[in-house]
């Protein structure tokens, strides 16, 4: 865990991300030439180098692909930072917004907004409802884990399962009662995806997610102190309860924004921080940036997968991350059990 190795890993991720994003922007049902894409991007940045692609390609690049890939990166990064935060707050290395029901809560909020027709009529109704759902799930989870002694690895996960199931049940009830023309929109949120996402989603959702991540990064030391356990944290002068609630609210804000932008994208919050913890260490100021980069990389790749694996149908993004994340989770769980 030398500092040099940690820096190499973070630097490697930071270098890999733009390269992978460039490939993701170029690849798809209409492949664009890599050099042309790079030229157009540099030209678009006003650097006075490079040059525009043919008009149709320009449109694909600037209107369709670029905001989508940027959003994928921010969603992935945001979810990974949320996962790392939840892992520290609950002192559980396998915490994740999807596993703990925070994603399901956000989805319930989003679906409710669609069902009630607010999503189409009221500005920001959908992200706000997703945030409210995520926040409600976090609060229920926190209250239950305190009351039921969910402080253990399995206790918290089991509590998360019940919160998830509760939110999913609510979503199903809404789904049954939803007019047919809205069902597809609803299903979209449940499966996760970045189809048809553009600059407007990036501008609003991206701002909230990046802002939330920056505040969480600024709170890294609080996260570190909390991870020592309630007693030691309190003995170091931290107001444990309000600190935890504040961090959970921020996590819910980012998770809600991510869900509003991309629907349910499970396991990213688990895989990225969990895989990077052994190299990045536990300190928030090291782990959170590494997790952000790792999560961004993961979702950009997963979104690329949804577009290139089957040329005719866009696969659901959430399914792709789950196909990767679920086996990872089982391995991590087995490893955690073997260690105790």
């Amino acid at each position, binding site marked *: *865990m030398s500092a040099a190795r940690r820096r190499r890993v973070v630097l490697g991720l930071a270098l890999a991300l733009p390269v992978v994003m460039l490939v993701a922007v170029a690849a798809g049902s209409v492949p664009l030439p890599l050099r042309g894409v790079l030229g157009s991007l540099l030209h678009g940045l006003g650097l006075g180098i490079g040059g525009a692609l043919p008009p149709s390609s320009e449109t694909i690049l600037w209107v369709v692909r670029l905001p989508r890939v940027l959003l994928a990166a921010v969603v992935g990064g945001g979810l990974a930072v949320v996962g790392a935060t939840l892992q*520290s707050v609950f002192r559980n*290395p396998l915490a994740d917004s999807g596993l703990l029901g925070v994603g399901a809560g956000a989805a319930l909020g989003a679906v409710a907004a669609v069902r009630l027709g607010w999503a189409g009529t009221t500005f920001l109704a959908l992200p706000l409802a997703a945030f409210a759902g995520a926040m409600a799930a976090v609060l229920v989870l926190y209250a239950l884990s305190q009351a039921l002694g969910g402080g253990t690895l399995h206790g918290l996960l089991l509590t998360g399962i019940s919160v998830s199931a509760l939110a999913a049940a609510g979503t199903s009830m809404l789904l049954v009662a939803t007019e047919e023309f809205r069902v597809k929109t609803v299903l979209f949120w449940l499966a996760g995806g970045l189809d048809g996402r553009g600059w407007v989603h990036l501008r609003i959702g991206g701002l909230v997610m990046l802002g939330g991540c920056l505040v969480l990064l600024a709170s890294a030391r609080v996260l570190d102190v909390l991870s*020592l356990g309630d*007693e030691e944290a309190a*003995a*170091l*002068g931290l107001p444990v309860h309000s600190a935890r609630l504040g961090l959970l609210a921020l996590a819910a804000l980012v998770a809600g924004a991510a869900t509003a932008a991309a629907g349910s994208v499970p396991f990213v919050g688990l895989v990225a921080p969990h895989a990077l913890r052994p190299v990045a*260490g536990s300190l928030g100021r090291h782990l959170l940036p590494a997790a952000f980069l790792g999560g961004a990389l993961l979702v950009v790749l997963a979104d690329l997968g949804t577009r290139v694996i089957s040329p005719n149908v866009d696969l659901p993004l959430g399914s792709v991350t789950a196909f990767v994340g679920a086996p990872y989770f089982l391995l991590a769980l087995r490893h955690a059990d073997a260690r105790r």
Partner: protein
Amino acid sequence: MSAAAAVPILEAESLSVRRGPRLVVEGVSLVLGPGEAVALIGPNAAGKSTLVRALAGLLAPAAGEVRLRGRGLRDCGRDAVARAIALVAPDEAAPATLTVAERARLGRYPYRGALRPFTTEDEAAVARALARAGVEPLADRPLATLSAGERQLAALARGLAQEPSILLLDEPAAHLDIGHQLRLFRVLDEVRREGVGVLAVVHDLPRAAAWAERLVLLARGRVAAEGPPATVLAGPAAAEAFEVAIRAEHLGGRPVYLFDEKPTPRA
């Protein structure tokens, strides 16, 4: 009464602490002055750990008060309390991948809070704490790779990094072999010489008697005896609390305590 006890840093007056419905500490008064070495002894479930946590301000008193330099803990502010009082308790809660040095650095939280960057003063305090606790060679090792005893010393390093006026320890020697135990108590004596008052829960009575200037015997939540080790251990309260017969022999000028099982009927 020593000069130290005349100007107490930490003072409990008629302190009672509840845990759930049960009154675990009842009417305890004690003082801790600069540079003092006090061992808190008592049978299991006597309320020692609860008392230590209440002294650190982690548990609110049901009655009575804890004062830091004459002011009630509640009026002092969290940060000020955490700068003055460090608590080192056995725990396995810290994340497995946190390193010893990172853990010690968190001891500076009461000084720097969430945002202010560390100064050279902070770095020096952390380095001193690591060296003093004898964990400097382990500084970059993750906690998961350490033995229980080494983790205990890492926790002590965090407490020392707080540069407190009062060091409270709950069974600091629990996982330590004899060599590490002797080193631990030597470290405690070193910080005492700098004026830090040290109160430690010690289960090993001969060790408590050898190290402490004063023993406080807690039995069923109350102070059953208090004073110089020889006096407390020779008194009837200690024998009754532990339900043993205690005998002191002298070997090379040092008292050696011998214990024999002696069931005493409880009142």
